């Protein structure tokens, strides 16, 4: 019986079952009601794949294996338990990177293992695994550094950026070809050949991530997510393993779809995001255009309270500023008080608000906002005329009317939440500074706009206490 559980057949059947569980898990993510169970099912698939692999008869020594498993589990579990929801983008970036380095190491281990004779296909897969894994690793670490503000989060642009990138890509393919054909023309050993490719892959990851910053971070996070899946799928071709290929492709497809959604939400092509350096270029343009006429109309919390108290429908529009000032709990409290007052409350969430896809949704869910109140721009824009008050909290570019009205604006054509069509708009801002794209926002000067200056959390808390008194 023991023989059966260690047989190739049993192991492979288990991998098929694991793949099915991954697929069901992702399928159940299509609704918030079933999503948590879906995640458990996916985790069960992973557990199954790990256990049958550990039981397999090619595993001779468990000594190092168990130490690495336990250490990894402790690090992973503590990171997952202690991370704040506002810093979720950093954690996901870091995890993406770990996935990338793991695949890189698997590819390297197989390549340097003299007992495994690799054919040309497997060698090609080794090259791709190491290349993509390395790009994912260094790119993710850089993204982590930018998000956590360890290093400057601004786009880093330099002259000849594309040429440098192309040189490194060509160089990596030359070395990749040598790995496959093993001609010996380059005169370096297998080991140093591999080290050179790893080195170039790490540089490529930095080159690809450095020009991206600020509001473009959701795109690169999604793209790196995709790469980590592709690296795992490539590793599947190295060790001829189906479950790696299935799981890796699912992740690769997922990251690619998210990347595409993010780009569409900004009305830009992926090429433009990767090489455009949007934030850096437009900040210089923005300062030159001083044509917008009108005046800023500040409002204090007492007057804002009176307007909110009389409102029948209120839409909150959060942006990264809400995460920065940790205002989500106060916002939910205000939302509940408004509802008790007979007002309809919704939260309009733009796909690129925050620093990763869906960032605002998680913050509001953490603050106990019911998920059926979290609405997308497409659902809220058609009924915007019926909204009495829009409360914009730390969002800027995603509510900029220039996207519809000003053809000369760098964000023209970007789908936005059309808050200026509501009867009244409150904009919670610390000062009149421009958003991440560095462009002026005529919303602030519109007839129906009122600026509520100060820290978002404090302003909302004051409104909450006005309601309670």
């Amino acid at each position, binding site marked *: 019986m023991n023989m059966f559980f260690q047989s190739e057949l049993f192991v492979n059947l288990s991998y098929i079952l694991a793949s099915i569980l991954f697929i069901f898990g992702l399928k159940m993510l299509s609704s918030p009601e079933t999503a948590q169970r879906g*995640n458990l099912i996916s985790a069960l698939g992973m557990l199954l794949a790990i256990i049958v692999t550990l039981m397999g008869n090619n595993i001779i020594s468990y000594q190092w294996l168990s130490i690495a498993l336990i250490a990894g589990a402790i690090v992973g579990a503590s990171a997952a338990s202690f991370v704040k929801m506002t810093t979720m983008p950093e954690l996901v970036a870091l995890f993406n990177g770990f996935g990338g380095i793991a695949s890189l190491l698997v590819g390297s281990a197989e390549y340097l293992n003299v007992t495994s004779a690799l054919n040309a*296909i497997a060698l090609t897969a080794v090259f791709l695994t190491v290349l993509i894994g390395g790009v994912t690793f260094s790119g993710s670490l850089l993204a982590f550094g930018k998000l956590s503000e360890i290093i400057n989060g601004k786009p880093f642009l330099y002259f000849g950026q594309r040429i440098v990138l192309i040189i490194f890509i060509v160089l990596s393919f030359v070395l990749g070809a040598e790995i496959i054909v093993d001609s010996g023309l380059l005169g370096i050993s297998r080991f140093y050949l591999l080290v050179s490719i790893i080195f170039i892959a790490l540089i490529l990851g930095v080159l690809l991530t450095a020009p991206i910053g600020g509001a473009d971070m959701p795109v690169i996070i999604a793209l790196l997510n995709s790469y980590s899946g592709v690296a795992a799928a490539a590793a599947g071709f190295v060790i001829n393993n189906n479950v*790696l290929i299935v799981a890796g492709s699912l992740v690769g497809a997922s*990251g690619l779809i998210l990347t595409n959604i993010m780009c569409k939400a900004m009305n830009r092509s992926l090429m433009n995001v990767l090489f455009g350096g949007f934030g850096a270029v437009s900040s210089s343009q923005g300062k030159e255009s001083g044509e917008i006429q009108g005046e800023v109309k500040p409002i204090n919390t007492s007057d804002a309270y009176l307007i909110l108290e009389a409102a029948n429908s209120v839409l909150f529009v959060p942006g990264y500023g809400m995460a920065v000032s940790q205002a989500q709990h106060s916002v939910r409290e205000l939302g509940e008080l408004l509802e008790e007052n007979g007002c309809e409350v919704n939260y309009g969430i733009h796909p690129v608000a925050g620093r990763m896809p869906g960032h605002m949704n*998680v913050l509001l869910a953490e603050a106990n906002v019911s998920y059926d109140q979290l609405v997308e721009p497409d659902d809220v824009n058609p009924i915007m005329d019926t909204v009495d008050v829009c409360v914009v909290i730390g969002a800027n570019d995603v509510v900029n009317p220039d996207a519809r009205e000003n053809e000369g604006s760098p964000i023209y054509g970007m789908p936005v939440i059309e808050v200026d069509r509501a009867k009244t708009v409150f904009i919670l801002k610390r000062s009149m500074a421009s958003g991440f794209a560095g462009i002026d926002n005529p919303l602030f000067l519109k007839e129906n706009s009122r600026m509520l200056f100060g820290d978002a959390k404090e302003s909302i808390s004051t409104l909450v206490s006005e309601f309670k008194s």
Partner: protein
Amino acid sequence: MDSLFIMLLFVLILAIFLGFELINKVPSTLHTPLMSGANAISGITIVGAILSSGSDSVLLTTILGTGAVFFATINVVGGYLVTNRMLGMFKKK
């Protein structure tokens, strides 16, 4: 041509199409948990890592494999736990 390779390629292509179909149905509300959950799944490379680390081969392979097991385990355990934590927050009144 290697028939095993063709079979693996076949699986790859089908899985990509399946991935697109599945992920397109995920609402934008759940995009963050989708990313962290997908990230956990990409930790599947742990299977390859275990094989490299535990099989009787040269020392270098064992060392590299063990490093891979460590990183992939962080990815798997951390990814699933944090996704679970996030999804637990999504409630309807």
